[in-house]
């Protein structure tokens, strides 16, 4: 039962992602991107990362995606044409070179995964043996909060400042430059 749901989510994520890159219409692709992100969030749950899944939905769906659509609407003068672009072909033709490259990567990665499976890293087997793995029953949020404020406080602060810088930078970049 659990596996069926996992496969469903995985299929949803992969299929939607394929559609995202395959569709000619950018607007539709962006909306399909929602599905992908939701499906990914679902997959995070299977990895027992409930907080990450929530964050994913909050930040991506609530922030990033809205921003993207907003930017898309702002930038694309062919938006209307694009929206109305119900052309003969629903999907864009695959770019042969890119496809080749991507398939190559896929093959390499799958080969790597297959290789990796046979000799699992020592730390994983050691943790499994000690039972030092996250259980569905664990309170993740609590644990995360403690870790953020103790073990990972320096990266946390750095990322915070980085976020600030990014926000300021984004605002600066997107403002109208009248003194050009």
């Amino acid at each position, binding site marked *: 039962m659990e596996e069926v749901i996992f496969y469903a989510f*995985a299929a949803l994520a992969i299929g939607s992602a394929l559609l995202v890159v395959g569709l000619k219409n950018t607007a539709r692709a962006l909306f399909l991107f929602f599905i992908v992100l939701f499906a990914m969030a679902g997959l995070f749950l299977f990895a*027992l990362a409930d907080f990450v899944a929530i964050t994913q939905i909050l930040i991506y769906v609530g922030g990033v995606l809205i*921003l993207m659509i907003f930017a898309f609407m702002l930038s694309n003068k062919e938006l209307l044409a694009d929206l109305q672009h119900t052309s003969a072909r629903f999907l864009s033709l695959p770019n042969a070179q890119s496809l080749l490259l991507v398939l190559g990567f896929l093959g390499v990665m799958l080969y790597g995964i297959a290789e990796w499976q046979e000799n699992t890293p020592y730390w*994983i087997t050691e943790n499994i043996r000690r039972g030092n793995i996250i259980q569905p029953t664990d309170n993740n949020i609590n644990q995360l909060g403690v870790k953020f404020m103790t073990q990972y406080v320096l990266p946390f602060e750095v990322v915070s400042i*980085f976020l600030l810088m990014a926000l300021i930078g984004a605002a600066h970049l*997107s403002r109208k430059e009248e003194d050009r």
Partner: protein
Amino acid sequence: MITLTHFLVVSACIFCIGLYAVLSKRNAIMILVGIELMINAAVLNLVAFGRYDKVNYGGQVFALFAIVLAAAAVAVGLAIILNVYRKYKTINPDNITDLRD
């Protein structure tokens, strides 16, 4: 039982799809989308591995960092796209070839 391998395979697929988008799309926003897909695949890997490290919680912590940083990057990226659009009246990266010569 959902093993680590399942996650890795899904993640690899998503990563590759993202990579494909980055390489082949003729729209800056879709490239950004591709990047996001790749980051998501990475995040998936992080959480999948993070499950076997209860002491440090590194996987989930850094998944969060990644998500946040991705969001910031998207914000900056979009700002750049808007600027580019303003300058070139297009967001097709093919037409922006200032790097050449």
